[in-house]
């Protein structure tokens, strides 16, 4: 009972209105029993009043139990929970800091409005408490309150109090304040927590003293800071580097993230080399931790070596698998070994791979075999050695090893055409053991591709043909193409008969549209012009490279900025998996697609078009892409709707930019409803941010198929708005959505004719037809930040313009309720207030704005406060813009 005594020392002894001492232990035991029942899931809410009655005790043990109970049941008994408020408020002023903290902590966990109201005053006191334990609890409590009622936090000035705590002398308090601010910032679209160089210094100082967890909070918050120049970056890195020595892996990884981010700014190669050297040992040490942490470390290292392979170039041995590594660790190690394999270490690596290929775990073996193939594709000088290892493995005759080897050898053939065909004979020996579609398809592709060198190619193919109708689509497609190839290469009688059978099977007796379409294309080609067919089917194929599991550069950038977070483990951008509860609920129900069989395959034709030109990846990608690549006839699939060709072809500026999606404000208007877009819904609006115009877009895929390859094009319009870069939308899985900010440029392709607000947009993706929709150009996004005019300037300009340039319009529906509010609102949109005067009961406001191309607009607003209808008169050199301008004003004033 030592603890209890300590806790109650400071308490005035006689305040307790509780029961006599002998009952106390009984009470405690009773409440313990209630809690026990609660934790196993029994509903004990009926005892609410009785339990709450025990709350007024100086026994901390009992108090904590009651609080635990309250947190669980207050929500279901909000009216009774009020009973507890008095005690809470009293406890928050208790002389014992533990009780003060406990009261605030618990109140924050009770999400009942009436209790929240009473929380503010105690919280305010506790944020300024003398005891650091209370302050640190209170700072987290602000985050709790923000989650319940954000407005309250802002109104009561808790944010400022929290910011003050960053300068607190206790590092624990600082860390919690940082954590709370970071969370609030994440859920708010307004800038709340911005790290200045001043806070940076404070936080870096606190970093050395706080707990390991606090260090992670601070490092993560600081990773959002952009250093001004290389020198500052070097300074930051210098302060953070000692964290690499920490025993806590989370601290190490967060420090690595910080250093990697700042390294981008550091120009001195010496410093960068030095940093790389410093980071290697701690990263390797992470692999001595528990397997779970190893996994996280490996996923992160995978990203790091893609950007900075030198860091771990000499450490490949630490990634060799131990026999007792869990499978998820082994798989990741393998992946990194492939990435680090080089001409220097390939012999060692191959020895390891060969060892793995004879392990017992089938999945691991398969991956090891593929790894050998990927090394062959990656390292030209080692290809021969890789192939000889593969051949050795094939000789073992373990079924799945052979199949896997054949799949990778096919990729090797594509990479090094006409080099290693001598091994085909060995491959053919294993022909009848193949039972997996991918392996079969690969073998058939090899036979078709090299039909002229395989004497009995027709016999080999024929053996597959018997079971044609039963084969999976993947194999059927390959059989079809291989037979056509065979026929074109050896137009003898045997193949001719075969092709009849295949074409018949593939056109008449199948319900797979891809197979059918491809068969018809071949058929027509062969019947009209066999020479053309030869050109198409036997065309030279582009050489492939090993790009499997290689991330898109922009995605890699984003992931590297998210090192040490879940995103870096999943290798997905955060917005792909972070779903707040509120948005998750809105997920639309699956819409039944009218033709199920159609949609199942619908990504294939698109791939066929693209993959003919794009290098096929070698492995680990969905079969469709790889297997389609070779035989896809590029010509017939090419026609794309003409209009799109015209639109997309206009400037052809299609290069990826990384524009991280920013938190959106109010919901965007729907421009393309899902009903029109076959399940694709687009919401969009023009916005201005930091002096630049963006097209803020939200894509929602309500269809049944993943959509990718999004592109956008704007038709000519009055202000010549066009995309400054290509549309950056990741592949959208069914049910997923993505937001993007598309940077815009103006005055690119100005349409002639009278000004119009019409903005015609075309959006296309790889799976669907081109969608066209109309949006409105709002002139206000063009108003420049530097549009403020001096009074004298204003008068002069006003006078210098002829009266014919003055245009006025009555904005009927607009009401000015308060001049100040209106002025503020207009100023936020870069319409600047110059002067005002009163004319009778009317208010007259003079404002200015700078429209596109720096043309000033002088504005006079006349209206009566509180009464609808405002007269807006403008004077400008460019009066033809007036209608657009009025529309913008009306929108702004509403």
């Amino acid at each position, binding site marked *: *009972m030592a*603890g209890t005594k300590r806790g109650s020392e400071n308490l005035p002894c006689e305040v307790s209105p509780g029961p006599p001492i002998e009952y106390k232990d009984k009470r405690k035991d009773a409440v313990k029993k209630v*809690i*026990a029942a609660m*934790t*196993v*899931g029994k509903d004990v809410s009926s005892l609410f009043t009785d339990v709450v009655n025990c709350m007024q005790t100086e026994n901390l043990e009992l108090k*904590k*139990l009651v609080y635990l109970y309250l947190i669980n049941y207050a929500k279901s008994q909000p009216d009774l929970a009020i009973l507890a408020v008095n005690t809470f408020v009293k406890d928050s002023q208790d002389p014992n800091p533990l009780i003060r903290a406990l009261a605030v*902590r618990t109140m*924050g966990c009770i999400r009942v409005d009436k209790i929240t109201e009473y929380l503010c005053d105690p919280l305010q006191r506790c944020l300024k408490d003398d005891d650091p334990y209370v302050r640190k609890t209170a700072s*987290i409590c602000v985050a*709790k309150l923000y989650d319940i009622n954000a407005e309250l936090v802002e109104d009561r000035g808790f944010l400022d109090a929290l910011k003050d705590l960053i300068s607190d002398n206790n590092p624990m308090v600082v860390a919690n304040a940082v*954590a709370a601010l970071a*969370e609030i910032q994440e859920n708010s679209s307004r800038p709340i927590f911005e790290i200045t160089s001043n806070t940076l210094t404070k936080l870096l100082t606190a970093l050395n003293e706080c*707990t*390991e*967890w606090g260090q*992670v*909070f601070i490092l993560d918050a600081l990773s959002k800071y952009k250093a001004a120049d290389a020198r500052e970056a070097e300074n930051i890195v210098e302060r953070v580097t000692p964290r690499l020595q920490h*025993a*806590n*892996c*989370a601290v190490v*990884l*967060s420090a690595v993230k910080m250093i990697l981010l700042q390294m981008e700014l550091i120009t001195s190669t010496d410093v960068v080399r030095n940093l790389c050297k410093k980071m290697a*040992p*701690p990263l*390797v040490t992470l692999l*001595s931790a*528990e*397997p*779970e942490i190893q*996994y*996280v470390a490996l996923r992160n290292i995978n990203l790091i070596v893609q950007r900075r392979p030198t860091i771990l170039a*000499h*450490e490949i*041995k630490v990634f060799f698998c*131990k*026999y*007792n590594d*869990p499978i*998820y660790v082994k798989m990741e190690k393998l992946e990194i070994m492939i990435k680090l394999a080089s001409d220097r270490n390939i012999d060692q690596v191959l020895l390891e791979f060969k*060892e793995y*290929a004879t392990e*017992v*775990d089938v*999945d*691991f073996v398969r*991956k090891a075999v593929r790894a050998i193939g990927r090394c062959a594709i990656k390292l030209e000088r080692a290809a021969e050695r890789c192939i000889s290892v593969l051949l050795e493995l094939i000789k*073992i005759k*373990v079924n799945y090893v052979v199949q896997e080897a054949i799949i990778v050898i096919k990729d090797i053939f594509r990479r090094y055409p006409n080099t290693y065909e001598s091994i085909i004979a060995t491959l053919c020996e294993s022909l009848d053991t193949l039972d997996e579609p991918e392996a079969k398809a690969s073998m058939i592709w090899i036979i078709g591709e090299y039909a002229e060198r395989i004497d009995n190619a027709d016999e080999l193919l024929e053996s597959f043909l018997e079971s044609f109708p039963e084969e999976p689509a993947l194999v059927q497609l390959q059989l079809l193409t291989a037979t056509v190839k065979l026929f074109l290469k050896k137009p003898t009688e045997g193949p001719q008969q075969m092709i009849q059978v295949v074409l018949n099977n593939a056109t008449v007796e199948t319900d797979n549209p891809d197979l059918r379409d491809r068969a018809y294309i071949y058929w027509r080609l062969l019947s009209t012009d066999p020479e053309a067919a030869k050109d198409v089917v036997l065309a030279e194929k582009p050489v492939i490279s090993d790009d499997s599991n290689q991330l898109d550069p922009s995605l890699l950038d984003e992931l590297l900025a998210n090192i040490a*977070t*879940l995103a870096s*483990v*999943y290798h997905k951008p955060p917005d792909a*998996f*972070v779903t707040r*509860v509120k948005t*998750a609920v809105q997920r639309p129900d699956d819409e039944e697609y009218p033709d199920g069989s159609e949609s199942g395959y619908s990504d294939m034709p698109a791939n066929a078009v693209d993959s003919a030109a794009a290098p096929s990846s070698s492995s680990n990608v969905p079969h469709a892409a790889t297997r389609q690549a070779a035989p896809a006839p590029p010509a017939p699939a090419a026609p794309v709707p003409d209009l799109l060709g015209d639109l997309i072809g206009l400037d052809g500026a299609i290069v990826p930019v990384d524009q991280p999606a920013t938190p959106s404000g109010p919901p965007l208007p729907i421009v393309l409803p899902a009903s029109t877009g076959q399940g694709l819904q687009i919401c969009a609006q023009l916005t201005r941010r930091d002096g630049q115009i963006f097209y803020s877009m939200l894509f929602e895929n309500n269809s049944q198929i993943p959509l990718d390859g999004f592109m956008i094009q704007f038709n000519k319009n009055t202000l010549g708005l066009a995309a400054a870069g290509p549309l950056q939308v990741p592949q959208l899985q069914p049910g997923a959505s993505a937001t993007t900010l598309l940077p815009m440029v103006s005055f690119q392709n100005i349409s002639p004719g009278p000004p119009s607000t019409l903005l015609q947009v075309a959006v296309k993706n790889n799976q669907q037809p081109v969608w066209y929709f109309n949006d409105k150009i709002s002139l206000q996004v063009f108003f420049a930040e530097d549009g403020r005019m001096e009074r004298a300037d204003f008068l002069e300009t006003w006078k210098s313009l002829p009266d014919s340039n003055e245009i006025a319009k009555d904005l009927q529906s607009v009401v000015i309720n308060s001049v100040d509010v209106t002025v503020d609102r207009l100023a936020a949109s870069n319409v600047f207030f110059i002067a005002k005067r009163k004319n009778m009961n009317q208010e007259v406001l003079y404002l200015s704005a700078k429209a596109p191309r720096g043309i000033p607009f002088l504005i006079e607003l006349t209206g009566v406060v509180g009464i609808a209808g405002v007269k807006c008169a403008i004077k400008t050199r460019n009066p033809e813009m007036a209608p657009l301008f009025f529309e913008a004003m009306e929108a702004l004033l509403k």
Partner: protein
Amino acid sequence: MISQFFVLSQRGDNIVFRDYRGEVQKGSAEIFFRKVKFWKGDEGEDAPPVFNADGVNYVHVKVAGLLFVATTRVNVSPSLVLELLQRIARVIKDYLGVLNEDSLRKNFVLVYELLDEVIDFGYPQTTSTEVLKSYIFNEPIEVEAARLPPLGPAAMFMQGTKRMPGTAVTKSVVANEPGGRKREEIFVDIIEKISVTFSSSGYILTSEIDGTIQMKSYLTGNPEIRLALNEDLIIGRNGSSVYDYRNSAGAGAVILDDCNFHESVHLDNFDLDRTLMLVPTDGEFSVMNYRMTQEFKPPFRVNALIEEAGSLKAEVILKIRADFAPSITANTISVHMPLPKYTTRVSFEFEPGAIVGGSETYSAGKAHIFTGVTCQYHERSWTCEHDLHNSNVQCFKASGKVLANSKEIQDIQSIPSTNAKGSLSGIQMASQNTYDSKPM
């Protein structure tokens, strides 16, 4: 941040469940368990420690047969969560003495009290047993330590299980001895995991030591402790490949590739005389972790020979030779040999004269030969060359002496500082080695 924390038993029973933010549905424990139990990814059947299901991220670790799980909806630092889960397990063990389903259930009130202090609104606050002591008021209910899981081979092979022998350490750090007298004790363990790969001809291909100095203190009055390491200790290799043995610096020097320290360790004198100063906090913690790939003499040599004896049979001859000073003995050695899944029968015998009887004492300087681990198979698809990938020899020693198998632990001494109130009554050293041998 963390939304919920829960502990599940191996059967999926909810032992502890605490919701911190109320943003993840209540049934998450069940969803999690089903996912893990029936995991089927493209890469193996083991669920990775971090995965996402329906927008909820599940992060879990296995400790002492229990699943410690945290859920979250936001993009947190997974290593933070994993570390935290490990620490929570350690703190609970510090308090309860024993960590198992039974002790958790008996002490659920204490566990909830701990959880409230360790995590607030999903943010880890403190995981130091020392700091927690001033906020925790419940007392642990002792659980019979007799039913400890045996220190069997299975436990030893689990990575990260760096446990100490004996029953002394199953005592809670907060509970007092009967009679009110506290024992003035400190336990310092040096635990090294040695991984060595031998080629089929007996050469060492790779060797690596992962070591940790663990401390568990029961001293009162928080005396300052000094830990002196070898003075010629060098940290970090300069350039050159880690595995380049030829260039290893002057004979005798111990070179650590990398090391890190517990936050309570003061390194003021470390550069000068390699002394660590610390005031040990309550509970078990690792003072220092280190990693080295410097060439060292492995305490065992493993040699494996595989012969095909008939079409469905193979014979494995495994030679293990203890290579350390005769004054040292190794106990509880077990050999672990993975076999193909389709092995139907295994029998083994010892060469006459071999002293090994499963888990007896192993004395140095003699070669012991297991002959003929005979395996029989269903089918003949198994070939010799890829058979015995790994054999595993494990040595566990708790004799009170320092196991002199690698230099840097030779000279480690624990020096109680003068202001220590109590005396040190038992310093225990343990060394744990795991071998990994690959005939190639």
